[in-house]
C-alpha cells in the first residue's frame, strides 16, 4: 500500500514532468517546430527502436552511479561536487588497466577494469576527504578545484602515456575486445550493455546500505546531527570520510562504465561529457531517493539522447536539451519548496497544539510544563 507521502511525491514528480513538457513545447513552438513532430523524433530517438532504447538505458547507468554517490554523501552531511574529476580519474585508471587486458578472459578483465575504475575514483575522492578531515578544507571547495586538476591530468594522459590513435589525435587506442563490457547481442548495434543491471542492483544496494546496516545508520546519524552522533559514540568525521570515498568509488565506476560499456571503446579528452554534474541533478530531481534516481537517470539520459535525435531529424538546436534539463531542475526546486511548505504547516500546527496542551519539545529533550 502506497503511503500518502509517497503518493504526494509521485504526483509532484508527474507535475514536474508535465510542466517540463509544457516548457519544452513552448520553446519548440518559439523556434518553429511542431511539438508533435518533436515528440515523435524524441520518442524514435530514445525508445522508438531497441537500438535507441539500449543507448538510452546504457547512458543512464553512469548518471545513476553519480547520483547514488551524491545521495550517500548528503546523507552523511557532506557536500562535494568532485564527481567530474572522480569520473576522469576512474576512467583513466580503468583505461590504463583495460588496455593491458587483451589476453585475459573476458570476465576477469571486466572485474579488473571495474575495480580500477572504483579505485581511481575513490583515490581521487580520498584527496578531498583527507583535505577535509585533516586540514579542515571545505570539501565543496577542494573537490571543485580537484576537478580542474583531474581535467588537466586526463588531457595530459590522453596526449601522453595513454595516447594510441594512429594519427596523433588525443585518443587512446581502441580497447581490446576482451576488455569491453558485454552487451545484449540480440539488439542491433549491441547498444544495451549488461551493466544496465547496475541500475536496480546499485539502487537497491544503497537503499539497503542506508536502511538496514549499522554503517548506514551511522552515516545517517552523522549527517543528521553531528553533536548527537558524537554523544552516541559515532565519529562524524570518519563517517564523512567514508561517504566521500565511497561516492568517489561510484563516480569512478561511472567513468569505467562510460568507456567500457558505451559504444565508443576508447578514451578521449572530454569523455566525462557532463555526467558528473548531471548526476547531481539526477539525484536532486529524485529528491535524493535512490529508487527515484533510477527513473530520473533514465529521464536525463533520454533528454540527452533524444536531443541529438531531434537535432538530426528536425534541426532543433542541441542546446534545447540542456535548457530542458535546467528547466527540470528549477521546477524540482519549486516543487521542493511547495512540498516543504505543505509538510511544515501540519507540524507547525502540531507544535502549536502541543504548546496549548503544555508539552514543549526542545532540541530533542522532552519536558513537561507546569
Amino acid at each position, binding site marked *: 500500500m502506497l503511503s500518502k507521502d509517497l503518493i504526494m511525491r509521485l504526483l509532484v514528480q508527474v507535475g514536474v514532468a508535465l510542466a517540463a513538457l509544457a516548457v519544452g513545447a513552448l520553446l519548440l513552438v518559439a523556434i518553429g517546430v511542431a511539438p508533435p513532430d518533436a515528440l515523435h523524433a524524441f520518442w524514435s530517438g530514445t525508445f522508438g527502436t531497441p537500438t535507441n532504447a539500449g543507448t538510452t538505458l546504457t547512458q543512464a547507468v553512469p548518471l545513476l552511479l553519480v547520483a547514488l554517490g551524491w545521495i550517500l554523501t548528503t546523507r552523511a552531511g557532506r557536500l562535494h561536487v568532485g564527481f567530474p574529476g572522480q569520473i576522469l580519474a576512474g576512467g583513466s585508471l580503468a583505461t590504463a588497466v583495460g588496455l593491458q587486458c587483451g589476453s585475459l578472459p573476458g570476465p576477469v578483465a571486466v572485474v579488473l577494469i571495474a575495480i580500477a575504475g572504483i579505485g581511481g575514483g575513490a583515490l581521487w575522492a580520498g584527496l578531498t576527504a583527507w583535505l577535509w578531515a585533516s586540514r579542515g578544507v571545505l570539501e565543496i571547495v577542494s573537490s571543485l578545484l580537484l576537478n580542474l586538476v583531474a581535467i588537466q591530468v586526463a588531457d595530459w594522459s590522453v596526449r601522453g602515456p595513454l595516447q594510441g590513435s594512429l594519427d596523433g*589525435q588525443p585518443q587512446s587506442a581502441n580497447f581490446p575486445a576482451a576488455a569491453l563490457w558485454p552487451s545484449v547481442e540480440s539488439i542491433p548495434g549491441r547498444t544495451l550493455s549488461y551493466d544496465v543491471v547496475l541500475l536496480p542492483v546499485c539502487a537497491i544496494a544503497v537503499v539497503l546500505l542506508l536502511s538496514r546496516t549499522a554503517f548506514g545508520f551511522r552515516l545517517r546519524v552523522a549527517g543528521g546531527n553531528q553533536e548527537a552522533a558524537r554523544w552516541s559514540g559515532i565519529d562524524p568525521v570518519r563517517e564523512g570520510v567514508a561517504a566521500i570515498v565511497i561516492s568517489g568509488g561510484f563516480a569512478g565506476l561511472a567513468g569505467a562504465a562510460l568507456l567500457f560499456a558505451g559504444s565508443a571503446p576508447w578514451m578521449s579528452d572530454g569523455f566525462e561529457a557532463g555526467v558528473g554534474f548531471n548526476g547531481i541533478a539526477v539525484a536532486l530531481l529524485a529528491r535524493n531517493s535512490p529508487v527515484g534516481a533510477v527513473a530520473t537517470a533514465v529521464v536525463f539520459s533520454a533528454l540527452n539522447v533524444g536531443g541529438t535525435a531531434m537535432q538530426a531529424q528536425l534541426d532543433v538546436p542541441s542546446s534545447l536539451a540542456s535548457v530542458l534539463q535546467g528547466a527540470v531542475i528549477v521546477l524540482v526546486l519549486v516543487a521542493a519548496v511547495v512540498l516543504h511548505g505543505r509538510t511544515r504547516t501540519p507540524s507547525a500546527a502540531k507544535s502549536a497544539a502541543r504548546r496549548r496542551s503544555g508539552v514543549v519539545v526542545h532540541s530533542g529533550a522532552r519536558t513537561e510544563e507546569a
Partner: protein
Amino acid sequence: MRTKIAIVSAVTVIPLALSACGSSGDVAAADGTKNIGSISQAPRNDGGFTQFGLAGVNAAVEADTNLKLSSIVDNAANSQEQIQGLESLAAKNQIVVADGASFNKAVAVVAPKYPKVHFILVAADLDAYAENVTSVSAAVGYNAIVVGAVASAHSRTKKLGMIAGLQVPASGAWYYGMAQGAALENPNTKVVQTYTGDYNDVGKAKQAAEAMIASGVDSILSDLDSGSGGVYQAAGGSASPADVYDVFALHCESSPHIIGSGVVSWSDILKNAVSDAAAGKLPAGAISYGLGTGALRFEFCPGKGTAEEKGLVEKITKDITDGKIVADKGVLLPKPTYHFEQR
C-alpha cells in the same frame, strides 16, 4: 522495501518493453534525391572551420538539384554524442559529412553499420581502410611554411607566435610549418606556440596573445575560430601593436592588424568532395588537398604586404609545388597505410 524493488524493476524494464513496439527506422530517399547530413564538434556558425565546411556542402547542393542538406548536428563534443549523431544521420541520409578530426574513431565505429551510406571524414584519417569512407584533409603545413616566411620577413623582433585551440596534429602542422618557413627566411627567427583548449573562447585567446606579446612576439598566427577575436583585441591593445595572420579565410575587416591569411578553402574542398560522392566518383581512402589545387593559398589583406613580401609568397609557393622545398617532420600529417591521393 518490496514496493521500492517493484518500482526500480518497473523503471528498468518498461523502457525496453516499449522499445519493442518501435520500428527499425532506416529511411531512404525514394525520389532520387540524395540527402546529406552533416555533423560537427563546433557550432555551425563558428566563423571558421565548421562554417566554411558547411558553406562547401551548401555550394554542392546549390550546384546539383538532386542534392539536399537535410540534417545538421553540431556541438557533438564527446565520442558518445558523436556516435549517436552519426547513427541518427546515417539512418536518413545517403552522404554523411563528419566535419572534424575528432570524428575519426566514431566514423570507424558507425560506418560499417551503414554500408550504403558514404561517409566523408574531414581533416582526419581512419586507422584502417573502410569501403564507404573517404577522408579529405588539407596539407595545411604547406600553407604554414608560406605564412612563416612572410611573418618572419615582416617581423621586427624576429619572434613569432602561434595560438591554437587544441593540441591536435593539424594545429601542430601549422606550428611546424610556420617554424620551417620562418627559418627559410631568417634562421634566427624564433616561433613559439600556445594552446587555449578551445577554438571559440575569446577570453582565453586574448590572454594567450597578451602573454605572447609581453614576451616579445610581434606576429601571431591565430589557428582559432571565433576565438580569434581575442587575438585581434590583444594585438590592438598593446603599446606596440602586433601583426596577426589568420588561417582558413581572410577576416581583414575584423582588425587593422591582420596582414593576411593562410587560406584553406574548406568550402572548395567540401564542395568538391560532396559533388564527387553524389556522382559516385569519390574513391574510398584518403585525399589530401595541397597548394597545387588552389584550395590552399596565402592571401594578403588589401593594402598589406610589400612587393618583396608578395614575391616571397610566390617563390615559396612555387618551390613547394615544384618539390624544391620538402616539408620537415611534423609539417604534414602522417599518411595512412591505405589508398592515399595528394591533390
